[in-house]
């Protein structure tokens, strides 16, 4: 075996490595130390190797400290990792917020409508109509339509009453029940026309009901000020009760 301290075999190097890196069991450590004490050449080889080993190890440490220091400085200046994370998520947070706002807005929008609509459906019921005592030939067509109306055949009733309206356009009874049929069908706008005509005369027997239905129609359409205005004009108890339900 070559005892030249300048030459180290691979096996010998690995022996030295294991000793230096504490990978030797204690017994082997002790026997190795004994050998070193007894063999001068081995001692020289080992010492030479140790210097190289220590150099590599210390260089590794210093490089590590340097890069660690730089990392810490970077973290102090610009929290890159944090910023990236929040930048990355920021867009998604914004998108999520927009979606949520739209959803809430849409929900609110629909709910806003249905708040008025809710009250409408709570307080609306179709006018019961006039008693249909057939026999009076003067108003046969009118009462025939009334029968349709009471049966819920609103289209038929409207058709028939419209024909009569052509001859008597300002007749408040015709206008009132036409409007009643319209509102029963859900045609608020047409109903509004009719009810407005009813109140135009200011002397109609249907005035309070017309005001009430006008108020309800505007409430359903979401026009709160007008709804309140008309409801206030009606002396019906129901109208007053509904008016109290509405916000100021």
């Amino acid at each position, binding site marked *: 075996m070559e005892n030249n301290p300048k030459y180290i075999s691979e096996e010998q190097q690995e022996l030295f490595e294991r000793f230096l890196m504490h990978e030797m069991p204690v017994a082997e450590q002790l026997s190795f130390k004994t050998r070193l004490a007894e063999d001068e050449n081995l001692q020289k080889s080992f010492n030479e190797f140790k210097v*190289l080993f220590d150099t590599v190890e210390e260089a590794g440490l210093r490089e590590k400290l340097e890069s660690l220091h730089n990392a810490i400085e970077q973290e102090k200046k610009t929290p890159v990792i944090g910023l990236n994370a929040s930048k990355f998520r920021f867009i998604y947070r914004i998108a999520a917020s927009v979606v949520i706002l739209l959803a809430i807005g849409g929900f609110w929008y629909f709910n806003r409508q249905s708040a008025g609509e809710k009250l409408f459906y709570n307080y609306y019921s179709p006018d019961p109509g006039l008693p249909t005592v057939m026999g009076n030939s003067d108003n046969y067509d009118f009462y025939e339509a009334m029968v349709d109306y009471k049966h819920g055949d609103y289209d038929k009733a409207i058709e028939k009453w419209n024909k009569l309206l052509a001859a008597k356009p300002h007749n408040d009874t015709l206008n009132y029940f036409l409007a009643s049929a319209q509102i029963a069908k859900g045609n608020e706008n047409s109903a509004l026309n009719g009810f407005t005509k009813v109140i135009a005369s200011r002397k109609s027997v249907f005035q309070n009901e017309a005001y009430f239905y006008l108020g309800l129609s505007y409430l359903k359409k979401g026009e709160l000020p007008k709804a309140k205005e008309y409801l206030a004009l009606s002396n019906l108890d129901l109208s007053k009760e509904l008016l109290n339900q509405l916000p100021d």
Partner: protein
Amino acid sequence: MTKTKHYHHRTQEEILSGLLLNNDLVINQLYREVFPKVQRYIFKNNGTSEQAKDIFQEAFAATWKNAKKGKLGEAKGLNVEAYLYTIAKNKWLDHLRSSAYKKTVRTIKLIDQANLSEESENETETSESQFEMEAMRAALKSLGENCKSLLNLFYFERKSMDEIAIELNIGAASARNQKYRCMEKLRGLALELKNNGK
């Protein structure tokens, strides 16, 4: 690389053994905990951040070397952070004692306050061994990146043969062989530089 537990609280023994094994997390924690204190001290005593960095890293290396020599906590009991801090402080005081600051009153006051007990580093390196160390460092610098990083993985990071083989995408036998060859190369370079110096 050996793995220590991933919680932040470590006992002094754990810090020491982590340091001995060049454990990444322990080094990280120790650096982050003690450096700010050292920096504050050096700022208070006329230093710059660059100086704080240099002094601290020197102190860290010295602490690490002494740990390997078994010198930590011989008298008062083991406290790695305190040891490191004291070494750094004393190094700064050594700097202040140098020619530029020798005549100021403030320096004398600081020296009085210094705790120059057994924690102070034993700088008894002879000029010859210092010369050898310089030659070694120079040799390592000229070794080439492949060998440098390979040896670093084995000797500093202490990764296993298999881990390194996977990391470098080579066979285990190849990793082993390359390590031997790199050390041979380093040995040759060191010898050359030593001989050229002499």
